[in-house]
């Protein structure tokens, strides 16, 4: 019996242990929609009016009011502008008045009064003429008036120019109306000017900083948010009775830019940040988070205005400013029980921070996929180290994200630990041939012949020098670089270069030249490293930014006062500009590198891999696949060059074709004359960019082909050791040899430890 008890006890202990250990591998419900009782389901509606720009948008109840500007090409390329009332519940629009009948008048801001009519401020621009009728000046006046929301008629017009201060260019940035029908006009200089219902000036109130936002609460009070003097953002009531701002309202902005504020329907104020939507109750000082924009497939960066409808839905108007054909979108968000929403397989996307391009791509993927839904977990909420520690903890406890954002992490380290999945078999299974892509760029995320990450778009970081000085080449060793600079003895190597930046340039993209990972031997005590230390020491400790720049960058480069230029090449146009800047052919020689492969690849819009322990690898691959799909790669092709090259060869060729396609205009004789496609500038240099020549495109192709390594993939530990120890040499406290010896000693431990 006793043995049995002991056996049972031991078994219980063992089970406890197994439970704990197996708990490590248990899938955890993460962020996003998982585990939430309610979700907000988006519904996209076409705006009942077509306009290129919506301005002065103001909301009241289930209505919004705005001025809509439309480019009328058939009418001589002018903008047509009207004031609209938009019924959000019924998705119907009513034109209240046309605004383009008087070309010198524009509606700058408006608000809704208690009776439902509008209070608006018009800007009038008038030319001042002399006795001969010549225009000698212009002046602006501000008119406050009422606009009927029934028929658009204007009444009670009052000139308030003088009431806003002495500036002849005063303007109204925000306009609000409180529950007493008092009118609050905020100028662009922290001033709030209050008028009574009958438009008589009541008082002026001044905020201590620049006002970011002015809003009327559900209760009918007006609040401003502004940057206080050293105290971060503050949110205060405009107290007309006391003629000053009230106390800071805690909990709504709390020292940071909380978001944009709109009048709430169920609580005081609706707050929209680029991350989420919340409701704030002023009386209790409590904030209720409703949902994250990303979970509702809305890009929070694009939200122009949002509010609550009387039927409980949230609405928002968005505009994707990054898109080539940006258009406004009206979105209704309905609160539903999570159980009522069609269940999709959830894919967890883990990122230290989420870039805007991948955020947009995730939203697009979620909108279009019936089977999968990506939820995002961002780790870097405080600082990099804490975020990385949390990410590592998730990996080791089996909560590995399905898709891993490789921005800001050392992919080699995670690939060697088995964290990342080889993507080549997935490509093969999907019938994607790697030959269709730039294989040298794919190689940047390769390790032992396996592909651990993919970037949809990339640019190149490189170094340029005059071909007449350096010769035609696309790579050099550190010795060659040092010889070149010493032979030419310039004022400086780069513009704004300091001792540390030159040293950094020589070493950090070339660290493998000093470490042999095969044998574990380091050569920091060698002649080359010591020479680099001594070379860097010749340059000033700090660049004096206060010194007067007598010459611009281009001029210095042309006159050989500067020898090299570190830059990135993200388009053919940028390549054309760089050649123009030197005034003669240039060599893209790159960073010094033992293998002469110093032109480095940098992901332009992030990079991703798949977690080897993911339980949703197929779903994760669907997303990764979408990044290299023909459709998406073709969408990266842009008429005047994008920020980065697509990795699919066919898309890149399309980009080159567009870059080489000339644009023409018809001159007065009816002849086609080639015109510039765009213009580029850098420091003192600017250049009109015409269609690229075949030679220029070949140059870009050669530059791309010369790259196969990722930029900036050096462990911070190595950077810290070298920076810390080299400081003593640069300060003249130690010899270069002694410094190199200490660096060698410390880095040798690092190398030994990691073998």
């Amino acid at each position: 019996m006793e043995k049995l008890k002991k056996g049972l006890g031991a078994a219980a202990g063992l089970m406890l242990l197994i439970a704990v250990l197996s708990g490590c591998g248990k899938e955890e419900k993460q962020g996003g929609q998982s585990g939430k009782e309610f979700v907000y389901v988006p519904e996209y509606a076409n705006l009942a009016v077509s306009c290129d720009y919506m301005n002065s948008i103001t909301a009241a109840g289930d209505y919004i009011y705005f001025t809509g500007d439309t480019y009328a090409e058939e009418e001589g390329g002018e903008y047509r502008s009207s004031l609209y009332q938009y019924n959000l519940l019924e998705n119907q629009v009513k034109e209240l008045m046309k605004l383009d009948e008087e070309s010198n008048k524009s509606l700058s801001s408006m608000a809704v009064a208690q009776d439902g009519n509008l209070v608006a401020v018009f800007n009038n621009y008038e030319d001042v003429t002399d006795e001969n009728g010549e225009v000698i000046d212009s002046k602006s006046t501000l008119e406050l008036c009422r606009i009927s929301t029934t028929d658009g008629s204007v009444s009670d017009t009052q000139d308030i120019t003088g009431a806003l201060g002495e500036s002849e260019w005063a303007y109204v940035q925000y306009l609000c109306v409180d529950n007493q029908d008092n009118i609050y006009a905020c100028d662009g200089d922290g001033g709030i000017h209050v008028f009574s219902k009958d438009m008589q000036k009541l008082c002026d109130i001044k905020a201590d900083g620049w006002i970011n936002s002015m809003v009327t609460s559900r209760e009918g009070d007006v609040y401003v948010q502004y940057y206080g003097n050293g105290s971060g953002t503050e949110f205060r009531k405009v107290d007309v009775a006391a003629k000053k701002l009230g106390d800071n309202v805690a909990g709504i902005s709390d020292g940071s830019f909380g978001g944009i504020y709109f009048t709430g329907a169920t609580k005081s104020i609706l707050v929209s940040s680029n991350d989420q939507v919340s409701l704030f109750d002023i009386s209790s000082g409590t904030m209720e988070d409703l949902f994250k924009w990303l979970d509702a497939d809305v890009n929070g960066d694009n939200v122009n205005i949002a509010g609550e409808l009387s039927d409980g839905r949230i609405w928002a108007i968005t505009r994707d400013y990054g898109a080539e054909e940006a258009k406004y979108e009206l979105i209704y968000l309905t609160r539903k029980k999570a159980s009522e929403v069609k269940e999709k397989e959830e894919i967890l996307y883990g990122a230290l921070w989420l870039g805007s391009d991948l955020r947009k791509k995730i939203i697009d993927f979620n909108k279009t996929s019936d089977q999968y839904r990506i939820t995002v977990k961002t780790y870097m909420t405080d600082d990099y180290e804490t975020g990385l520690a949390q990410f590592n903890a998730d990996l080791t406890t089996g909560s590995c994200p399905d898709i891993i954002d490789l921005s800001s992490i050392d992919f080699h380290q995670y690939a060697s630990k088995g964290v990342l999945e080889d993507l080549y078999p997935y490509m093969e299974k999907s019938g994607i041939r790697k030959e269709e892509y730039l294989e040298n760029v794919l190689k940047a995320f390769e390790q032992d012949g396996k592909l651990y990450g993919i970037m949809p778009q990339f640019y190149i970081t490189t170094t340029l020098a005059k071909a007449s000085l350096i010769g035609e080449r696309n790579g050099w060793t550190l010795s060659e670089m040092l010889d070149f600079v010493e032979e030419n003895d310039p004022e400086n190597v780069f513009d704004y270069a300091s001792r540390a930046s030159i040293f950094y340039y020589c070493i950090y993209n070339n660290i493998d030249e000093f470490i042999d990972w095969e044998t574990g031997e380091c050569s920091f005590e060698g002649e080359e490293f010591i020479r680099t230390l001594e070379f860097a020491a010749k340059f000033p400790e700090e660049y004096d930014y206060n010194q007067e720049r007598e010459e611009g960058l281009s001029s210095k480069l042309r006159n050989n006062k500067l020898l090299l230029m570190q830059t990135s090449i993200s388009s053919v146009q940028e390549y054309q500009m760089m050649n123009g800047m030197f005034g003669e052919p240039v060599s893209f020689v790159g960073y010094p590198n033992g293998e002469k492969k110093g032109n480095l690849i940098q992901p332009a819009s992030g990079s991703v891999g798949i977690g080897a322990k993911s339980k949703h690898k197929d779903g994760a691959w669907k997303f990764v696949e979408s990044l290299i799909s023909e459709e998406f790669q073709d969408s990266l092709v842009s008429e005047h060059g994008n920020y980065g090259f697509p990795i699919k060869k066919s898309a890149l060729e399309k980009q080159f074709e567009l870059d080489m396609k000339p644009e023409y205009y018809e001159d007065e004789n009816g002849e086609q004359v080639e015109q510039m496609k765009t213009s580029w500038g850098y420091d003192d240099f600017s250049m009109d960019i015409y269609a690229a020549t075949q030679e220029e495109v070949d140059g870009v192709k050669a530059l791309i082909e010369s790259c196969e390594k990722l930029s900036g993939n050096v462990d911070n530990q190595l950077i810290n050791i070298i920076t810390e120890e080299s400081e003593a040499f640069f300060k003249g406290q130690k010899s270069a040899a002694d410094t190199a010896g200490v660096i060698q000693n410390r880095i040798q431990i690092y190398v030994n430890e990691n073998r």
Partner: protein
Amino acid sequence: MHFFTGGKKVKKSGSNQRTRRGKWIARGYLFPSAAGVLLFFVLPFLIVFFYSVVDNPINRQFVFFDNFVMVFQNAAFQQAAKNTLTFSLTAVPLAVVLSLLLAMTLESKIPFKSQFRTFFLSPMMVPIASVVLIWQVLFHYNGMINEILTFFGRDKIDWLNSSYAQVVIVVLFLWKNLGYNMILFMSALSSIPRDIIEVAVLESATPFQIFWHIKLRYMSSTILFVTIMSLINSFKVFREIYLLKGDYPYDTMYMLQHFMNNTFNRLDYQKMSAAAIMMAIVMVIIIGILFLTENYFGKDVEE
């Protein structure tokens, strides 16, 4: 003790019930402690053992003792083990002997005993971050010690980036720990029976004989305790070194805990765990030897 009188089965049963109940109550009281030990000591150790026999914390493929072989052959681990051993073999005996000497000195009739006691205890009160700052100022290449050396015409020494680095750490360790050890020894010295010493004096025993044959034997358990504590503290010197030189110091300052800390940060849990287990085995052996030694020297005192 027997409660059974006259074969009444009821009474026997009642007694058994009480005994059983008492056992359950005892188990109930014991449970929090037992659960704590299981949760915070046994379980972590088992997890460490688990990681030591898998390829990495993500794949978790069983690799038997490969990690132990790999870590044992790793040059950084060898360096760390050598440094840790050298440091402990130097610092621990010095910490024991010097603090014992200090305790005996303060036991004798010297003036300002109380002030000296406070003086030696004061390093315990200084926060470690401040201690490290002071040490940096003292032993920096342009620090106070080198200023003194150059004043006497000697070359500067790069104390923290040379083979002298471990000397600095030993001095720092002694400075930090001597006071505490000294107090323990003073307490042990004061508990030695006076009559035995008086008899020895009457028997014309020399001070050395009194120290060797009486005091040392009575203090054997305290010496063991101080040695073990100093040994444990010697492994904790990583904290000071880390604050002085970060994750990768000069090789003479690179300790086993650096190896474990760095491998943990790089998700090499398997290396860290194998190193920790090897270190634990060595610790058990050393402490076992210390116990045997104490048993040998202290047995006649206990008798």
